[in-house]
């Protein structure tokens, strides 16, 4: 039986029913060897207790664990809070940070649906209406027209574009703001310049800055922890010292080189900022940077100051205040160290946050030159400042384009020139470059795993990337041949790790993932053994 399509107005109706349930039959099919169909439930249902306690009536998934209101009064208070926040969102003074783009995006859509075909989540889910990029935007437009404009209620009835604003609408909209990775592929495709990714961002901001609603992993364990403890991973400056000592030992063990990782070196040319997740999950990436910079005699340093050793800025996904706080703190650290410039390692959103978005937050002597590490790596490799042998990387390699670096910043070629030069079996994913697909972990998803959300991002938001990876390796799918997905971004790596792991891609097909800098070090001629260790992590 054909399912009834969800309509925009449905968001405030049938309060006790889920709007949709996604099954394997709905979802986009995958290429071989995963083409046999996964008709099972893609997302585990929440337990009865979870369903009773938390809002999940959008699609049965809980990304942000919003507790259900206990009384009618509480519901009304929340609705009032939402409308108050909406007024601020539409105010030039309160929302100067993004008012202009928000208005443009709200007013310019001609409902041609060009953006829909660009959205990997909408396509992967089997074109579920609620994941259409214009769905949440249209909900917001109708709420604004009805509740913010004079005569709105009358015209809503007259035109048939009515929408009910109750707690369920708001709770579903809050969850819906976390079903978009803000990869902005839809915005790139929009002929009129309407940016549904930005609308998602602004909705998240309304919920966070006015109502205090945000995913725990991004807010409490993310920005708040980073500002108070020093890092979103919880690593304190003291713990960092121990980790770095371990890494120095590890470098010696792996390469025979005795390299000191510099800390707080005043007047260094470069303050290198890594995503602190790398210290815990992928220390080999930080080690590889240290090996390369040592070989190239670069005058660089890490910082041990609070926030100064963590490039992440989750504020860019949901909260302008937190974004500004973190960016300013990072710049203050660089200023205190008197470095010439800040270089951001392999972390996409940190690139975007510190180099681009925060450019209009940093003034005076906090406005220190900031750059991506990729052009620097390209300079080392392509200008042959280090001796490298491509034969050491003679295995199939494909390259993932992190949206924040590529589509949103225009850093498209440096990583390609490196991989083309160093990897004889390099093959592109299709599409790639500025037309790439998000890994499915963007917008904070890679670090979010509340209740059944991880199932959703492994099977829905990441499905297109999994398809691309499998297609890139179709001719070498035999597990005996090791293959490498190069993802020069921490969050992308985290998401790709979870994607490959949940589909058994290492065991069954021999697909491993890692960063760009590891490939470079792996090709260094003066290392006795390969730097890349072919084991799952």
């Amino acid at each position, binding site marked *: 039986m054909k399912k009834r399509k969800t309509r925009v107005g449905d968001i405030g109706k049938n309060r006790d029913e889920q709007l949709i349930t996604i099954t394997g039959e709905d979802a986009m099919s995958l290429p071989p060897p995963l083409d046999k169909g996964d008709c099972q439930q893609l997302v585990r249902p929440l337990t009865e207790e979870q369903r009773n306690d938390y809002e999940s009536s959008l699609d049965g998934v809980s990304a942000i664990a919003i507790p259900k209101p206990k009384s009618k009064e509480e519901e009304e208070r929340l609705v009032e809070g939402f409308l*108050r926040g909406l007024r601020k969102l539409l105010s030039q003074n309160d929302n100067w940070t993004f008012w202009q*783009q928000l208005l443009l995006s709200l007013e310019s859509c001609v409902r041609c649906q060009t953006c829909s075909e660009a959205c990997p989540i909408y396509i992967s889910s089997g074109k579920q209406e609620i994941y259409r990029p214009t769905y949440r935007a249209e909900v917001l437009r109708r709420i604004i027209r009805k509740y913010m404009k004079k005569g709105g209620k009358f015209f809503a009835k007259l035109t048939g574009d009515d929408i009910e604003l109750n707690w369920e609408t708001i709770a579903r909209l809050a969850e819906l703001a976390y079903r978009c990775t803000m990869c902005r592929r839809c915005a790139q495709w929009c002929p009129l310049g309407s940016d549904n990714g930005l609308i998602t961002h602004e909705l998240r901001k309304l919920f966070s800055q006015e109502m205090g609603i945000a995913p725990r992993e991004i807010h409490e364990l993310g920005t708040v922890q980073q500002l108070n403890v020093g890092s979103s991973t919880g690593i304190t400056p003291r713990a960092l010292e121990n980790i770095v000592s371990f890494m120095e030992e590890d470098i010696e063990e792996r390469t025979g080189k005795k390299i000191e990782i510099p800390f707080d070196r005043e007047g260094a040319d470069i303050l290198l900022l890594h995503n602190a997740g790398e210290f815990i999950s992928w220390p080999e990436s930080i080690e590889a940077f240290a090996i390369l910079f040592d070989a190239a005699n670069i005058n660089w340093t890490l910082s041990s100051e609070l926030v100064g050793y963590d490039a992440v800025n989750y504020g860019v996904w949901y909260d302008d205040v937190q974004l500004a706080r973190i960016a300013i703190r990072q710049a203050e650290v660089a200023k205190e160290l008197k470095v010439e410039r800040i270089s951001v390692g392999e972390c996409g959103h940190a690139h975007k946050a510190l180099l681009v978005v925060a450019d209009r937050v940093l*003034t005076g002597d906090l406005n220190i030159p900031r750059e991506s590490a990729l052009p620097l790596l390209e300079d080392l490799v392509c200008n042959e400042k280090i001796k490298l042998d491509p034969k050491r990387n003679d295995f199939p390699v494909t390259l993932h384009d992190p949206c924040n670096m590529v589509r949103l910043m225009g850093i498209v070629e440096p990583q390609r020139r490196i991989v083309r030069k160093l990897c004889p079996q390099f093959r592109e994913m299709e599409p790639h470059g500025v037309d790439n697909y998000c890994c499915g972990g963007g917008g904070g998803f890679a670090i979010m795993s509340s209740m059944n959300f991880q199932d959703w991002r492994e099977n829905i938001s990441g499905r297109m990337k999994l398809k691309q990876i499998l297609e890139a390796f179709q001719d070498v799918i035999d597990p005996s041949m090791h293959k490498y997905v190069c993802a020069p971004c921490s969050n992308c790596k985290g998401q790709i790790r979870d994607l490959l792991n949940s589909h058994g891609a290492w065991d069954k097909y021999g697909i491993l993932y890692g960063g760009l800098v590891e490939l470079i070090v792996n090709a260094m001629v003066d290392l006795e053994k390969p730097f890349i260790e072919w084991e799952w992590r």
Partner: protein
Amino acid sequence: MLLYVVVAIYYGSIAFCVIASIVRLVKFTTAPIHLRWELYRGSSVYELTDWWTRPHATFLGKMKSAVLDILFLRDFYHRNRGFWYFLYLFHLGIYLLILWHVWYLIVPLIVSIGVEPFWDMVWGHVSTALGFIGSLGILAKRITNEELRAYYPRIHYLKWVFMLLTIFGGFYAVHCCFGAFMPSLEDARAGLYPPSSIVIHALFSSIWLIYLPFSHVLQLFFKYYHQVRWDDVPNVRGSVMERKVERLLSQTVRWSAPHVPHGRKWSDCSSEQGQGTEE
């Protein structure tokens, strides 16, 4: 008398269109600068190691891209070909009709050369036909395609019907009242009571002119307003941009969530210590 009323409404609507468009443009372009949020179609200056010392994309380069997009609707062509066919016919028709009107208004005032009336009519009728087929096709597509129908405000269908009536009315007025050639301005002024088809067409056109500043046409220009789409203008120390940023950072934060220091300046809340603590 009627002629004077119609002329007043018609030229009044042109004046309104121009003034309202300017007001909207000024309002939009003088809004507070925003945080940067650009998109790229390819490689950018960030691919260079010392990008902050290099020039960014030039205004002319951006303009060229914008003009090509607007003339040929390139994004629709590449991304939504099924929609592009009728949309382009419609736009091509409208572009040609605008040029045709400009031709009749301006050229006789500047030069005394005339074009064979037959070719004038071909120009006008072909443009009209393109506009009519295009808008009819768009309306049909909007009605028959479920995906498009679900999100399209009902009132906008009326817009297309009205567009068809305007285009057809224009054809009728020109073809049936003037036959094989257009009258000169002097000839038209001689008759104080023009045919009703002319009056109706002028009034319909006036309604479109009044609507235009609030339509998506102006939005298309906003897309290319360089501080929105490709706002890669860096904030350089001591620049006008920096002064604007400083002014905005001195505004009061009025958001209310517990972690936001309500009532303080943006610059204060951003740089305070222990700022992440839940209050």
